């Protein structure tokens, strides 16, 4: 995901129009996971579910392999991606650890210490 032209925001994905267009089908898949019925259908055959939502091969791989960073890079919005993480029993702190390159425990500790004020 690219920052808008001319912007300089290191370490900060910007969910812009290009990202949103790119990720639209994948984000719709994530949003569908609000319902128990959809979660069951997804769990029963993740690949078929991805095909139903017409994900690109890269997006499908990212979803199947739970490559959270790739989901962001391929146009996922974090609020949408989180629906899949919740379904897996994972927390926003777990995801924060993945994105920032630390363990969930270290990420939680950093927040308890007042958040990452130096990045």
């Amino acid at each position, binding site marked *: 995901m690219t920052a*808008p032209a001319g*912007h300089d*925001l*290191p*370490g*900060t*994905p*910007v*969910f*812009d*129009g290009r990202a*949103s267009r790119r990720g*639209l089908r994948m*984000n*719709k898949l*994530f*949003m569908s*996971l*609000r*319902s128990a019925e959809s*979660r069951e259908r997804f769990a029963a055959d993740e690949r078929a579910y991805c095909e139903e939502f017409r994900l690109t091969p890269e997006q499908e791989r990212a979803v199947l392999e739970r490559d959270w960073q790739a989901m*962001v890079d391929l146009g996922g*919005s*974090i*609020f*949408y*991606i*989180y*629906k899949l993480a*919740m*379904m897996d029993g994972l927390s*926003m*702190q777990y*995801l*924060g650890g993945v*994105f*920032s*390159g630390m363990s969930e425990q270290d*990420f939680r500790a*950093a*927040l*308890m210490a*007042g*958040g*990452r*004020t130096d*990045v």
Partner: protein
Amino acid sequence: MSEVIWGMVTSHVPSIGAAMDHGKTQDPYWKPLFDGYQPAREWMAEHRPDVAIVIYNDHANGVDLDVVPAFAIGTADRYPVADEGWGPRPVPEVVGDPDLSQHLIEHLIDDGFDMTLFQELDVDHGLTVPLSIYCPDPGEAWPCRVVPLLVNVIQYPQPTAARCYALGRAIGRALASYQPDVKVAIFGTGGMSHQLAGARAGFVNPKFDAMFLEAIQTDPERLAALSREELIRQAGSEGIELIMWLVMRGAMNDEIRRIHETYHVPASNTAAALALFDNRGD
């Protein structure tokens, strides 16, 4: 003539609602935050509005990415509480105020604000958590009607901070001409600094938050001048939702009185704050 009696800004993190729903507000993790709310809650319990205008954003629960409005107003009689994936929160359905919604729409459209209407809308934690912060034990029903006002804070380009502030001013003008006389509270939700994705995930900026918490009362023009880029840099990619506070601020008088404020890190991945303002100055 209707009147804004008070305004509250508050974070709307889902786990704040979950802590209340699961009786964890006295756990060591949550106690400082909820203790910080207490004086505001007591004051608000003695100053009940007839209707609350809640400025918030949806988070993949009530509105799909097919449609991304800059500003939207709900016009419904009732707003079901969204099922965000683990069942709806155990809180009352939200009762709307379609007459006030319609009045606002007509005035705002004539005032050059290109509002979208949501005639049906499920409301998510972005709206219900602030209601729970206002009123932790609503019983069968919330103590006021609600007009949801949604701002696109998720997809770049969000409306500018200046445009949000201008929308608030226009809301203030529209309320001044509303009959019957109703007492209105206005909620600016979201924030404070936080970032959920990217290498900078977990970012918190207490200095910026302190400046914002002070200036929202005393110097909103300064905040309205912040660019999107500056907001994201200073408050994190999700901290840009602070622009919603400016809608609240714009709807209030130039002079407002601070009743209470609290700031706490962390609520989930967020710096959380609440500030409550009496609209009747000093």
